[in-house]
């Protein structure tokens, strides 16, 4: 019988927390890219894009993330791709993140006064130039606080990847509990580690928001 000291528990959880961070970063970067692509398709006024993206957002915001993970996991298997759990988790979390981010960013772009669009198009800027030189720099300032705030949701969302068998912080907590029979201590430690990851992001988002309000 191997004895686990508190340090053993913490050490193993810390090792697993690396995967939580890696999965969060993957989902956030991937989701950001897909979300940006969706945003541009929507702004560019491609036919049917507005309704299509709205439906996409509604689907991801109206169903549980857990179901999305299961669908990615079983769906990929059904297509004949024998993928490890982390690929399915990364795919589901990327799509989930993209739906939320594209919706957040749309709000930021719509907050830019119409006059800015009209003025820049009267200067004969093409859509790409309008976005790059006029709209996005202004929208970006508005977008940073809620985007950082959403990063907290992504980190917390990765905890669900434990359910499809990806060994990150929560799954490691379950496994260590099964070995030590000390669920109270282990889950308290797991919660503290998520807190250590998320709280700085929340605090940063709040201070960004405050400074934005001061400028205006």
């Amino acid at each position: 019988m191997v004895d686990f000291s508190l340090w053993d528990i913490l050490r193993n959880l810390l090792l697993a927390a690396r995967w939580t961070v890696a999965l969060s970063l993957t989902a956030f970067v991937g989701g950001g890219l897909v979300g940006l692509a969706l945003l541009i398709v929507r702004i560019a006024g491609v036919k049917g894009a507005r309704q299509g993206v709205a439906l996409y957002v509604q689907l991801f915001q109206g169903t549980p993330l857990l179901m999305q993970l299961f669908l990615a996991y079983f769906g990929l298997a059904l297509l004949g791709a024998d993928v490890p759990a982390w690929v399915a988790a990364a795919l589901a979390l990327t799509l989930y993140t993209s739906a939320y981010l594209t919706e957040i960013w749309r709000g930021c772009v719509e907050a830019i006064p119409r006059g800015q669009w009209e003025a820049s198009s009267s200067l004969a800027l093409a859509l790409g130039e309008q976005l790059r030189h006029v709209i996005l720099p202004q929208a970006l300032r508005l977008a940073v606080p809620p985007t950082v705030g959403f990063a907290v949701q992504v980190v917390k969302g990765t905890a669900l990847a434990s359910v499809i068998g990806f060994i990150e912080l929560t799954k490691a907590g379950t496994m260590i509990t099964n070995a030590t029979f000390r669920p109270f201590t282990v889950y308290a430690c797991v919660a503290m580690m998520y807190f250590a990851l998320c709280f700085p992001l929340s605090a940063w988002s709040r201070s960004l928001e405050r400074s934005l309000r001061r400028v205006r």
Partner: protein
Amino acid sequence: MVQLDFGAVLAEWPMLLRGVAMTSALTAVSATLGLALGVGGAWARSAGPAWLKAVVGLYVELIRNTPFIVQLFFVFFGLPGLGVKLTPELASTIAMVVNLGAYATEIVRAGVEATPRGQVEAAQSLALTPTQVFLRVVLPPSLRRVWPAITSQIIIVMLGSAVCGQIATQELSYAANVIQSRNFRAFEACIVAAGLYLLLAVALRHVLNRLGPRLLFGGR
């Protein structure tokens, strides 16, 4: 070619229906109690004594910065270590109430802080007690202001309750799990369950949009 067979899943409709009923019940109970907790928390943070403000602040930050599934596991697996034994349903309800309570505290507090000072002063000049001022003057318009945010948060909690199946609460996602273990139609079972969650979310938004004004702040 992938063959989908939804018939095998839909044939188990009584189980799906029971799952929907359990998810709805969990949501109804935790929305009611969670909102009450949120109102209490908002009162404490805006008008309570300093130590209570600190305690509520800590509670809000702890809950908002940890995943729901960890909170649920802590309640269900961790608390029995302290001698508190809970059924899965009770553990799920507690975790959902505590979770919603933290978010609702922040949301309601934002509404309370937006109350014009004159309203409070006018109520005080009518010799209302502090409790009366909060419950009758400050709270109803505050809830009206933040009701859309409350609605969204309740829907998020309802969707989050899918995790409760992991501790064998027999709600919708648990039903989907049982069905796929019977007929191996995992993908179809998840599609059907996700569709039902979507319907529940849309229905819940409609219900809350109508119910809030009627019950809580006396609108028509």
